[in-house]
């Protein structure tokens, strides 16, 4: 275990130098760059910004799930002359929010495909007049039949998208699954489902647009991906690329929820600004944000596995299906990640994963932390417990016997080349949580208890960066420059929305330049200033963009040295002075670095074979729960999260990422239920969509194993999404242990437990055949 060195969670943050390398800044709990502004309340989010002459926009949306627009009337009681009104006819370019496809209209022209689909835009100087005006627009529809479940969609009686309601299909077929059933001692089958999940960032979506024919269009917004919005707005407005400028402002949480939708709001604000000639702000309130914007894809996974009585997994046949909503948006890529992760952290000699993303008539589902992996991993990790139970082996032993190890291949045939040691992570997690003794004691004491206790585990992996050839296509660039004052700046389109981008990238830059952290700052995330370092998604920022910043910094340093302004060693003031002189003398000091795919990474988009990800983060989580048999409520009492994420660049931020992800995972498992009424979220208020409060979260105990990864910046891999994957299955495994009953669907509410335990409702077919 020499390669491992570990530290406990912060509390007593380790001092500089205690880390693996001899770095001064990377690995330390450097303070959040924009932290002082945040604790003072001076950080400016989108709703905190206004411009002279600015007016306010609002969106008229469809009230039905699917139909043709017959007639639009502007009702009584509103002085319509005072309003700017925009419809699809006002769109200068293509009526689409361009993502992977262009099927997502910016404004519905003659048909609507989901409730809350935008149809018209209104603007007025008095924002308080807008709700009434929106309500006064009467739209008549010819209602068309709509589809509201994956089952209806796949039945195909009503086709609502394309030829067959299917956005995308994938097939992974590795080995010979069909030949394996005969060799099995046990065949275990199951069906697992996950619900939609609302991001519930506290900062609602919003954007401001300003337009003049000379300067073109500028959009300020709460967002993750300025260049996604840029691409979309160029396509929508028909303006040249250099006449569209996107500026991300302080963004109060995103979690994937501000990956695609900000392009929509930005487009809406742009259309109103272009028509009115004034800056326009569109700010969603909580209900509009909840009912109209994206959620996590609901899913259904069917797994059939062959296993020997010694607990060796022989084969898996997995059918993974997601509900994509009404338009394709990002469903294909979410499905892809879910598909690749479906086999979990195990070695399968034979595996087949068939997956599809289906259309239904609800608002499009979108990116959400984990991006499909939490769905398919939930299924696999619940299934592993059921396999263990079927063959009479402990859940941890079954996992141990089948873990991926260096040299073994994943479902896509990717040979594990990292020095991963899942057995060690498992052992550590079990020891810290006191798992074995508790499991045994709870089983014994539960029989008559009014409060039943359970403990469950989940072991999993999460691929860092874009899937397959994604990074190659992205072709990202990051840069560094110096200002006339000698301040060093990081130039990226990677955005901060709480996860720590600013801090981590400045740490990397400062480390690479050999200067103090305080001497480095972020250039504004403005497409007019920064290069396209790709979207801020997929846990790619530290690993991929961090590496580019590292190279750019080294380039900048070398330029300075080559110019003779910098010697062999320097202090921070010397470095800054040299940079300043360079700018004064030569006009600029800048260095860019472009992504170069590692030579050993190969991926085939056709067969879905190859190196799906450049690296994986690995983890074992343990949840301890109590199920109250009076109220059927579940409380999570303790949570242990042990993970290997490469090098930890900032222990405070890293720990915070894990804890925050675990809390969202607890919500996903036990609280958060989107209640659909014909494609519309019926509980679009914080009072009825329940997320955990400070009194619902157990102590979350976070531990890292550090194993620097060769290709990431200072050894970093992805971290942001990983903690979303494990909590739900660990918790459901614990509840199933406590109650001695299989629960295979999330969210698992007290009502569901009541139905099963008290009212003895049986579960849908899930035979354990022997």
């Amino acid at each position, binding site marked *: 275990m020499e390669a491992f060195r570990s530290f406990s969670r*912060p*509390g007593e943050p380790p001092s500089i130098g205690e880390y693996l390398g001899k770095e001064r800044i990377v690995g330390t*709990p450097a*303070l*959040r760059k*924009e*932290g*002082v*502004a*945040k*604790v*003072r*309340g*001076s*950080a*400016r*989010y989108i*709703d*905190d910004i206004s411009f002279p002459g600015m007016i306010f926009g609002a969106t008229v949306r469809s009230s039905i799930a699917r139909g043709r627009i017959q007639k639009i009337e502007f009702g009584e009681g509103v002085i319509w002359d005072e309003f700017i009104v925009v419809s699809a006819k006002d769109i200068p370019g293509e009526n689409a929010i361009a993502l992977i496809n262009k099927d997502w209209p910016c404004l519905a022209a003659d048909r609507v495909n989901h409730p809350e689909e935008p149809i018209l835009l209104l603007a007025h100087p008095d924002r308080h007049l807008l709700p009434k005006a929106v309500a006064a627009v009467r739209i008549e529809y010819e209602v068309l039949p709509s589809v509201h479940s994956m089952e209806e969609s796949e039945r195909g009686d009503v086709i609502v998208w394309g030829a067959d309601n299917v956005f995308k299909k994938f097939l992974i077929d590795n080995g010979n699954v069909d030949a394996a059933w005969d060799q099995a001692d046990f065949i275990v089958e199951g069906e697992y489902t996950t619900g939609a999940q609302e*991001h*519930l*960032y*506290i*900062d*609602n979506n919003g954007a401001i647009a300003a337009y003049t024919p000379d300067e073109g269009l500028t959009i300020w917004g709460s967002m993750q991906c300025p260049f996604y919005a840029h691409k979309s707005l160029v396509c929508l407005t028909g303006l040249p690329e250099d006449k569209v400028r996107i500026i991300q402002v*302080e*963004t*109060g*949480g*995103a*979690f994937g929820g501000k990956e695609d939708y900000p392009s929509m709001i930005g487009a809406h604000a742009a259309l109103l600004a272009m028509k009115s000639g004034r800056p326009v702000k569109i700010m969603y*309130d*909580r209900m509009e944000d909840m009912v109209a914007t994206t959620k996590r894809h609901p899913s259904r996974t069917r797994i059939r596995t062959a296993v020997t009585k010694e607990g060796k997994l022989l084969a898996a046949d997995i059918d993974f299906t997601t509900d994509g909503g009404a338009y394709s948006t990002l469903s294909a890529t979410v499905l892809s990640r879910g598909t690749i992760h479906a086999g979990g952290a195990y070695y399968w000699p034979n595996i087949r994963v068939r997956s599809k993303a289906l259309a239904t008539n609800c608002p499009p589902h979108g990116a959400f932390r984990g991006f499909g992996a939490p769905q398919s991993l939930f299924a696999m990790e619940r299934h592993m417990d059921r396999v263990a139970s079927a063959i009479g082996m402990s859940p941890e032993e079954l996992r141990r016997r089948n873990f991926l190890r260096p040299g073994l291949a994943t479902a896509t045939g990717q040979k594990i080349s990292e020095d991963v040691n899942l057995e060690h992570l498992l052992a550590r997690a079990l020891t810290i949580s006191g798992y074995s003794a508790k499991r045994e004691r709870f089983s014994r004491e539960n029989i008559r208890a009014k409060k039943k206790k359970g403990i469950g585990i989940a072991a999993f992996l999460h691929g860092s960066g874009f899937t397959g050839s994604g990074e190659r296509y992205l072709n990202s660039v990051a840069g560094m420059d110096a200002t006339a004052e000698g301040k060093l700046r990081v130039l990226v389109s990677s955005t901060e*929305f*709480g*996860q*720590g981008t600013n801090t981590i990238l400045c740490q990397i830059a400062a480390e690479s330049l050999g200067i103090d952290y305080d001497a480095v700052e972020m250039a504004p995330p403005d497409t007019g200033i920064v290069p396209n370092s790709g979207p801020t998604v997929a846990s790619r920022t530290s690993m991929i963009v961090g590496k580019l910043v590292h190279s750019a910094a080294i380039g900048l340093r070398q330029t300075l040295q080559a110019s003779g302004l910098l010697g062999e060693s320097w202090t921070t003031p010397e470095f800054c002075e040299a940079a300043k002189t360079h700018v004064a003398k030569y006009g600029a000091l800048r260095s860019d670095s472009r992504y170069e795919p590692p030579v050993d990474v190969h991926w085939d988009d056709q067969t879905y074979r190859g190196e799906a990800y450049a690296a994986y983060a690995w983890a074992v989580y343990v949840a301890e729960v109590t199920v109250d048999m009076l109220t059927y409520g579940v409380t999570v009492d303790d949570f242990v999260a042990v993970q290997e994420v490469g090098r930890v660049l900032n222990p*405070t*931020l890293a*720990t*915070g990422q*894990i*804890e*925050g*992800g*675990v*809390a*969202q995972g607890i919500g996903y498992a036990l609280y958060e239920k989107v209640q659909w009424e014909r494609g519309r979220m019926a509980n679009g*208020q*914080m*009072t009825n969509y329940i*997320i955990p*409060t*400070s*009194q619902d*979260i157990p*102590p*979350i105990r976070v531990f890292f194993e550090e194993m620097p990864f060769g290709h990431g910046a200072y050894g970093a891999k992805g971290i942001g999404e990983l903690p979303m994957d494990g909590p739900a299955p660990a918790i459901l495994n614990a509840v199933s242990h406590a109650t001695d009953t299989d629960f295979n669907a999330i969210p698992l509410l007290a009502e569901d437990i009541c139905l099963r335990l008290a009212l003895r409702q049986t579960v849908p077919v899930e035979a354990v055949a022997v």
Partner: protein
Amino acid sequence: MSRQCFSLHVNGECRMVEAYPMERLLDVLRDGLGLTGTKEGCGEGECGACSVLIDGELVNSCLVPVAQVNGTEIVTIEGVAAGQHLHPAQQAFLTCGGAQCGMCTPGMIMATVYLLKKYPQPTSDQIREGLNGNLCRCTGYMRIFEAVEKAAVQGQGE
């Protein structure tokens, strides 16, 4: 209904505002007085992002019409620090990682300031209860609890 004049003592200063009596204190602070540190997360009393102190009591400003605070003392996040000097709660949130996206942070710090006034050495249960009306979607609360504990220790020395 026409606008009326209200006098509020905000962060130690007397401020006169012209507003409709049913305007929410939240909007008066943000739009009228430019104090945008107080945030709107829900507008329904659930999230606590809009928390301020009114006459020393923690209140959600999205549920208070300005007419009900005429003549009161109001403290917002902008009034917590002593000039350049951060309040111990602000400092602790900064160093412990209690603020991620920062949207819940102003409200969370107001709730912390209120909590520490009531219980200078709060127990873990008191901290959890004291922050139960302030939702945070980013942190999972652990760093926040740690920040409150740290602020309590540092507040002692003040």
